[in-house]
């Protein structure tokens, strides 16, 4: 279920990237795509009724229902990269708006550069 939801988010994001013309909306769509992938990554390691993968005296270490910790580490990295790209994209969008006076990518095609 959670996987379907994450893939749905991915597709919504992809649809947004393909159909919008506004740069800010495109960047938000990419964010939604990344969110979908991140949720998918988490869902890969998820086990119903699993326990956190910590070795303590309260938890029997012979249990095999540990949640996989690796996807959680991966998702942290992926979130940070997503943040970096979003902020960079927004900075470029702002610069573009300053130069051409629009956020619409299709408007710029025929414009003079100066």
């Amino acid at each position, binding site marked *: 279920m959670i996987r379907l939801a994450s893939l749905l988010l991915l597709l919504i994001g992809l649809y947004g990237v393909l159909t919008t013309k506004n740069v800010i909306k495109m960047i938000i769509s990419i964010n939604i795509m990344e969110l979908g992938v991140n949720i998918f990554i988490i869902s890969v390691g998820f086990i119903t009724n699993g326990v956190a993968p910590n070795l303590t005296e309260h938890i029997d270490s012979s249990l095999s229902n540990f949640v996989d910790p690796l996807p959680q580490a991966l998702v942290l990295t992926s979130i940070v990269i997503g943040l970096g790209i979003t902020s960079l994209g927004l900075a470029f969008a702002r610069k573009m708006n300053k130069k051409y006076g629009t956020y619409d*990518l299709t408007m710029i095609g025929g414009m003079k550069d100066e």
Partner: protein
Amino acid sequence: MNNPVLLIIIPLLLAFVSVIIKKAGKWILLLGVLINTVLAFFITTGETIIGGFLPPAGINLVVTQFTLVGVILINSLMLLTIIMSIDLVGKYSVILLTALAGINGMLLTGDLFNLFIFMEITVIAAYILSAQAKKYHHTITYLIIGSVGSTFYLLGIILLYHLTGSLNMADVAAKLPLLTTKELLVPILLIFIGIGVEVKLLPVSGWVKGVYAHANRLIAPLFASIIAGTALFVFGKLFVSVLPLSDTLTMLILVMSVMTFVFGEFAAFKQKQVKEILLFSSIGQAGLITALFISGLVYAAVILIISNVVSKLIMFTIAGAFTEKYQTDNYHSLSGVFVHNKITGIAFTIAALSMTGIPLLIGFYAKLNILIGFFHAGNYVLPVIVLLMTIVEGAYIIKLLLALWAPGKEGQVSLESFAVEKKQLLSVKNTAICLIVALVLIVGGTLIDTTSKIVTNGQPLLGDESPYFIISQSKGGE
């Protein structure tokens, strides 16, 4: 001394140093690239484990002969680019050092997720570098295509992790043949799309024209030869030695590669700007190289990468100088420019002819190996396409060279007075470097025994046992 991790750490460390000491930025950059190039020559093949955990649980760097060629080639080219265009570095030294760290990481890493991280480091640096031309809509197009591509790549490797329980390339490569082709179809396709953005394959190479066509003397060779070369080496590593391709996938990727090749060459033929000719020709060559990797002709592909990135380094540097000095790179308005700059012109001509595959140059040796390899594999369709495209390539290169060397219109006597006004294109230092690199193309193409010995070191690259052409031994040399 010969720990490959230094190749990633030193530029990264110096990147932080150059943030603090902004004024010495370009000298720190030069120092970093110099150290890296020297170190690249001293690393040896083998595996380096990082962090003390044994792979597949831990992270490792893998140096094979294939990556060794890539690391030495890319670092040396980076050094040459920086030396030639150090006056343009300005505030970009941090970005260039970070890009260098990312590039070396991409070439060396033995882990799929690490590859994702290093790829992101490199492409984020590339986004910032592409903004140098102040054509922000092109940068944003690149950023959007690039991030969608890397999201696909991430999803692909996570699916592989889900299927195999590992992200280590060697481990994944050992476990994947146990899975059915149906299970592998989606992850491999997603990874292919992700890498394809950087390799510049057809459906996802829409960003290339905007970014390359406005890049300057520093950025254009950086994109066309360094980042593109790295992406091709990574493509080769992944699709030859890690991911098993079913027949359907091989066919699909091969068709896309060949389409890219044909489209790129024909598009290059139609262009009027020097940089646009070169960028479409890069797209075409990238398509041919991926087709070679998919067909298993690793040696031919590596020689073609070397020939292509070295030629593109010279040509894009000179094309960047055109826009710098004449404010245009339309070859009609540059007629006879090489009459005033003969040595620069000779370097450009050697690079261009090597790209077309004129004998005695390394490009010819690459094409020879491609044809021999395909014929040995019993493939008679691709050699025809390669030869036909060589004609197209020759046509636009000769048209370009003629316009740049001979002033005046067609049918006129070519006099120096018809040429564009006299300006020195490149400084003496840069002209010398361009000429020396061009001579390397000749030496590499004539002493092919030495070339093959340096590239292969006597071992097959990535297990490629297909014959290649050398004179002294009879191994495949008909």
